[in-house]
């Protein structure tokens, strides 16, 4: 940004009215004398140059971006968990590059120090034997994992991706508030926050003095990729699954970096090798970026109740066949009480003091420290020693400024009795930074999260991206679970920054294997997604036909209407209610499956499914039977076709797309066979054959292909046998047969049972004539198609 920009040197006084320093607290926007720091001027001038409406439009662009991207986080409340929109605070935090460089250097040092601590506590244990670290601190730490003691990671390094939460104290200096070494989240959200903020302030951004983020990810991705020693292995991202609070980020990062998202059950261990269960059989996984807490990673050796782990993972690490990012057990460093010892540890291991101090911490298990805490509890927060929460995330037993959560003064003997389990931290008044509240800039406490990644040339620091903003002026309200928000952090350089994106480096792009790997569980979800969506479409078509007839005749009480109603009831959509719950359930199931494979999905595809679901819910609350419902179903039909178009036409022909397509084809064939059987039955009411043609979306074709009215033979010919009609069973079976050709072959087999079955169906349908197709034959075909899913599962879905 050009600080001497001539743009109408707007008057800042209106914008800053009411923004002032809080007593005893540093501010990011104003210096100690209350003057605006120069780095902020261009942004403030830009804001001041906008009228209210222009500003709202600009800020809305960011919100719209996040909504379109489906960015959410999971919020845990009294009534379970819900997806919440990403709480963006629109005004970025600005930091001069010179100051940032100091921060980055200090945190790089700290990352390297933590690496050494990991090597010690899982190796020689000199910190304990030399009296630097009390042994209890590890022995009582649930994240210090005995089964991995003595395992040297493949490649020699324990930590590859860490984050630090830092805050600025009243005197202007920075403090480390927390070490995030387990599986720090936020790096993906930081990218989205950046892109959103970009939408609001693109003009400022184009001046190119804000440090870019993309290079950080590119270097980290290249590092992970380079840790794979064999050609055909890939990097996996291990997620606890869709119910995790940051699952969105896991899927997002997987998609952004081109890594495979996996859950524990997608992996298995054989003779010390970590393997992914994929549709192409077992494939080696050498590098796993773990977004799962260590303790849950292996039910055989760690937390035995874990349903989300991989039995034998520790054995694979012992065998040195894979690298975990970060190594198992790295969460031990996050325990609050560890901070009490970091200054001494730094001196001991490196001979130099910490470049950036961490928040003053006392472990009460040391008798002298305990008495000090008792005497000074009024300026401290006391909480569990092993808690991995940040200073502003308090547990139930927390004592804040000498007062318990019940509001009573703390009893010194309670501290003494629980001393070994407690740690105290000095209460730090975090600096404030501007946030918009009611259209005005307001000072709000902030803490920054800084991400570091290990590359071949050492640690690289992500230049900005993520700060938490409190929703009141109280530092304790900074937690996102308690209403805090997140803003972008701009590191502003005094020279022009070259734009960087992930796409620049063609070498890496070319090296990535062509089709990647598809975990069997993802294939299963895609197959079911295809089925559920098609099932919903079938119900919608039949429901529309029903309500059209009710609208035409004004009654549901005649043979054809009750014939349709019976069919609807059989497929779980009893038309007694204008929008049957069975239809809503199918869409819910489709969303659930889609949610599990969000990394494989375009944002547009996802949004159109969400929109479909939302529209259906809205209709359910107000649509009435007859014409109203018929029109509502036409709307839904257009929307569902929109989804199918986005997915089937625009999705790259990865193996996953084929499973989605097979799911759709199975369901469409089954629905058509059922419809034909019902409508060609001897007791079917008059008009049933026309119904079949209508629901089969083939009225026009029928008129052009046949000179006669609909009869049994034309219906069967068009909807069952005509391979040129995309709604016919024959066409669907051919489609499945083509998919089958492109699926991987199981080792040592030339065809799969699924492929054999599709070939025999195609052969039978090619040679049949409409006259020979009896009701029994339709039932046989239904049974044969019905087995296709199971046959596919036999070869691919273990």
């Amino acid at each position, binding site marked *: 940004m050009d600080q001497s920009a001539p743009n109408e040197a707007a008057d800042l006084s209106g914008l800053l009215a009411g923004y002032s320093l809080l007593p005893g607290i540093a501010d990011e926007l104003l210096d100690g004398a209350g003057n605006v720091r120069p780095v902020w001027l261009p942004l403030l001038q830009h804001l001041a140059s906008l009228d209210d409406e222009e500003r709202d439009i600009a800020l809305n662009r960011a919100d719209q971006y996040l909504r379109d991207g489906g960015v959410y986080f999971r919020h845990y409340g009294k009534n379970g968990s819900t997806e919440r929109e990403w709480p963006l605070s629109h005004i970025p935090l600005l930091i001069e590059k010179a100051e940032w460089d100091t921060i980055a250097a200090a945190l790089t040092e700290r990352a390297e120090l933590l690496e050494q601590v990991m090597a010690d506590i899982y190796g020689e*244990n000199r910190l*304990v*034997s*030399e*009296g630097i670290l*009390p*042994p*209890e601190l*590890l*022995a*009582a730490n649930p994240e210090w994992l*005995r*089964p991995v*003691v*003595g395992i040297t990671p493949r490649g020699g390094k324990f930590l590859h991706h860490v984050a630090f939460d830092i805050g600025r104290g009243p005197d202007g200096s920075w403090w480390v508030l927390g070490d995030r070494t387990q599986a720090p989240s936020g790096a993906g959200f930081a990218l989205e926050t950046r892109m959103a903020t970009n939408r609001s302030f693109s003009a400022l951004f184009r001046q190119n003095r804000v440090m870019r983020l993309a290079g950080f990810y590119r270097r980290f991705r290249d590092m992970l990729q380079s840790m794979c020693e064999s050609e055909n292995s890939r990097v996996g991202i291990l997620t606890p699954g869709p119910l995790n609070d940051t699952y969105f980020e896991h899927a997002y990062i997987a998609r952004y970096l081109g890594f495979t998202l996996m859950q524990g059950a997608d992996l*298995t*261990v*054989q*003779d*010390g090798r970590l393997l992914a269960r994929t549709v192409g059989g077992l494939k080696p996984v050498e590098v796993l970026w773990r977004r799962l807490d260590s303790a849950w990673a292996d*039910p*055989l*050796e760690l937390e*035995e109740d874990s349903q989300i782990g991989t*039995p*034998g993972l520790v*054995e694979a690490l*012992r065998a040195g066949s894979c690298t975990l990012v970060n190594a198992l057990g790295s969460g031990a460093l996050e325990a609050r009480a560890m901070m009490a010892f970091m200054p001494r540890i730094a001196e001991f291991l490196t001979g130099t003091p910490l470049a950036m101090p961490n928040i003053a911490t006392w472990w009460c298990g040391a008798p002298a420290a305990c008495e000090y805490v008792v005497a000074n509890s009024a300026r401290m927060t006391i909480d569990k020693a092993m808690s991995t929460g940040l200073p502003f995330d308090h547990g139930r037993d927390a004592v804040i400024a000498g007062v318990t959560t019940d509001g009573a003064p703390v009893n010194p003997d309670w501290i003494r009795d629980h001393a070994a389990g407690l740690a105290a931290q000095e209460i730090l008044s975090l600096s404030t930074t501007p946030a918009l509240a009611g259209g005005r800039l307001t000072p709000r406490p902030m803490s920054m999260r800084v991400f570091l990644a290990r590359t071949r040339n050492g640690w690289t620091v992500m230049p900005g991206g993520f700060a938490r903003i409190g929703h009141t002026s109280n530092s304790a309200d900074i937690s996102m679970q308690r209403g805090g928000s997140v803003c972008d952090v701009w590191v502003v350089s005094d020279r022009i920054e070259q734009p960087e994106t992930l796409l620049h480096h063609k070498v890496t792009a070319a090296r990535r294997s062509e089709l990647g790997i598809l975990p069997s569980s993802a294939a299963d979800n895609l197959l079911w997604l295809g089925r559920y969506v098609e099932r919903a479409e079938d119900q919608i078509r039949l429901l529309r036909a029903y309500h059209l007839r009710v609208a035409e005749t004004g009654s549901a009480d005649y043979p054809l209407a009750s014939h349709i109603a019976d069919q609807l009831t059989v497929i779980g959509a009893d038309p007694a209610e204008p929008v049957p719950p069975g239809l809503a359930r199918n869409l819910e199931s489709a969303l659930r499956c889609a949610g599990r494979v969000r990394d494989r999905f375009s944002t547009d595809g996802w949004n159109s499914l969400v929109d479909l679901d939302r529209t259906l819910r809205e209709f359910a609350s107000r649509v009435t039977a007859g014409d109203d419902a018929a029109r509502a179903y036409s709307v839904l039909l257009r929307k569902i076709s929109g989804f199918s178009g986005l997915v089937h036409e625009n999705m790259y022909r990865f193996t996953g797309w084929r499973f989605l397509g097979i799911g759709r084809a199975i369901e469409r064939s089954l629905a058509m066979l059922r419809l034909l059987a019902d409508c060609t039955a001897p007791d079917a009411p008059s008009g049933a054959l026309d119904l079949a043609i209508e629901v089969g979306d083939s009225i026009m074709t029928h008129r052009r292909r046949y000179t006669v009215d609909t009869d049994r033979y034309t219906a069967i010919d068009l909807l069952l046998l005509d391979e040129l009609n995309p709604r016919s069973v024959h066409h669907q079976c051919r489609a499945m047969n083509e998919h089958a050709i492109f699926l991987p072959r199981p080792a040592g087999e030339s065809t799969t049972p699924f492929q054999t079955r599709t070939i025999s169906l195609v052969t039978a349908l090619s040679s049949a004539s409409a006259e020979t197709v009896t009701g029994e034959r339709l039932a046989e075909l239904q049974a044969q198609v019905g087995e296709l899913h199971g046959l596919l599962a036999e070869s691919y879905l273990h």
Partner: protein
Amino acid sequence: MLYDIRLSIEYDYETPAEAGLHVLRMVPRALAPLQKVIESRLDFDPLPAGRSERFDFFGNPVTTIRYGEAVTRTAFLMTALVDRQPGRVPDDTSPPLEDLKAGIRAIASLGPQAPHHFLPPSPRVSPDPIVTAWAAGIAVGAASVFAIVSKLCAALHEEMVFDPTSTAVDTPFSEAFAARHGVCQDFSHVMIAALRSLGIPAGYVSGFLRTIPPEGQPRLEGADAMHAWVTAWCGPGMGWIEFDPTNNLIAGEDHVVVALGRDYFDVAPVKGNLRMSGGQTSLQSVDMIVRQPG
């Protein structure tokens, strides 16, 4: 004394189970100077597709096996020849309880025998207020750590009834204590919780008991299956002493140690991961017979 030991563990599955990996701690460990394993072997039926051996954090021998195919039955058979010396009933040189903390603190180590591992909550033994209160009552008046441990061991044996049918392997110890019924695992977990609540490091020992008692002595409880007892740290001088609360005695010549850990979690003889739809039944049998010289 020289023992021939045989441990057989069998599982039958109603429907074929994908047995995958199993981690086994079935073979007795060496424990100098009193216990020597002269020979040992593990046999499997059916034969696993993979097998590896290692020692765990606490120094227990561990065998990991992997089945490739689904199984309807698995049988593990351990046979060993073990020399176990009687040892000496120790003189009480343990400190008073109030001095134990300093003794623990003086040990700057996290080696497998370090007492630090055995005080904090462990996977199966978390502090229980009822056991804590009970232990505090029993400890009153005992002059030394060793005296406290002995008193707790006797009291537990007195109050709790050994009853092989009363609890399952995953019954929480607090439930067993509330009913004052249980098997050796419950006795041991209750005693560990009690000792830790007083600040005395305590661990869990799995092992075997002599099947046929020496002439003129009663048969010990727990000899028909794998047994469990407690090891307690009685200060820097005495170190670790093994107490058997099920039989109210200090473990000696009749006890052979398989594995040591913080609680059952660390020493479970079989840990497996199964993917199955039906139920399973298991059968365990143990023989520990004195080998006659000559």
